[in-house]
């Protein structure tokens, strides 16, 4: 079986209005690193207005599960998988 060194995935925000494609994602990287790299291109804030970090879970559409930040890209993802970034956000 051919082992990929990198892969491409697509991602979107929860409203389905913002989309990005990540290319050449190293399979040895973590899901957390992938999510952190996707946020700026999806124009999603990593900090809220009070400066607190906003937590995002990546939802893998193919398996309908949230990935853990420490999971390895090569273990969790297949080429052209789609992720939806789900934020943990608070209304007052």
């Amino acid at each position, binding site marked *: 079986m051919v082992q990929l060194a990198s892969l491409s995935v697509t991602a979107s925000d929860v*409203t389905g209005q913002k989309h990005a494609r990540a290319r050449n994602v190293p399979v040895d990287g973590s899901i957390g690193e992938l999510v952190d790299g996707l946020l*700026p291109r999806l124009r999603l804030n990593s900090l809220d207005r009070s400066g607190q970090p906003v937590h995002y879970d990546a939802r893998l559409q193919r398996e309908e599960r949230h990935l853990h930040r420490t999971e390895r890209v090569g273990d969790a993802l297949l080429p052209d998988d789609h992720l939806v970034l789900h934020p943990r956000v*608070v209304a007052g």
Partner: protein
Amino acid sequence: MIVCHHRFLLLFQQPEGPVLGQLPLAPNWEPAVEWAAFAALRAGGRETPPHGRVVPVADPRLGLPYLSGFRVELDGADPAPPPCEFPVTYFARDARRGSAALVAAKKLRDGDTFSYRLLAVEQPEESSAQSAALAFEVGEETRPLAVTNAPLPPLFAATMPMGETDGSSAYPVFLPQAVLTEAQALVEAAGAREVGGLLLGHLQRDPALPDIGAVVTAQIPARHAVGEAEKLTFTPETWAAVEAAIRLRRSREIILGWWHSHPARFWCQDKACSPATRRACSLQRGFFSSDDLSLHENVFAKAFHLALVVTYADEGCHHALYGWNQGVVQRRGFRLLPDPTDARPPPTVAGSAPLPTSPPAEAAAAPTHTPIRESPATCQPADPP
């Protein structure tokens, strides 16, 4: 990609008095660019990705570096849509933040009147791209906005205006009473806990007008959101459940916004406020908190996105709708689609008092310091008429 070759700042002054200080700004241009792109689409133009340039507009009396606002020039459309201008009030919340700092530094007293001016100075372009810890390429992809073509006049004829009187820039929003009724039932059942959900529907374009309206068709309760007395947490599980519910509906709906409750009748119960004071309390009248604003800015950043607040007040539930207007979140009106099977009177919509998040337009000239509400836990008397 949003390009800006200027650094913006606010200059604070007391009327006829000395300069009190200045506040460098780190503007979020996305709401302005989104608004410009949506305005072009509403006017019958082609859809453009929210990319463009931010250009200062000189104050006609004082000249540069003093500004009367800024304009957004969109990329990518041929012919290019007309530039969309934004007033100084785009930075009203920054002005209040700056004034709060001046109060803390004892340069201003709470309640003092002050004015602020917007300035811009040139600076080399900074790339908005951020380097990720993991080296890979990320490109934004543009997908067409889901818009259906249909005439809007029948919807206007079937609905009645509710809430605030909107400015000419507001896009029409059509909201069924059934959605309000369902939300209200969930709010009343939750008692002292906050609850919420998502608003689904369609964007409908009428090429003859031309304009685009947001037609709400349903609300989906956020079943996995964690509701407490003064906050509601939308967890990743919340979004997963909502996505599953939308798929099950098979109605090609998009997420038009969100809703949540403020169980104000349960707040401040340990305070000995008279019934009259409670009736006049701004918490009972409805508001959009700084947390609400932060959530809306981050998750619901498209110009058509809406937020409905259901306030569970002493005298029952009332509703207020919020949405983007020229890049700023403001309380706004909507058109209520009556439920033909329901003979009850239309729901109560909160009054027209200005919001903490949306100062009146004249505020740019001489705004009075108003504290930003960081928490709904403090009982406050009504603003003077």
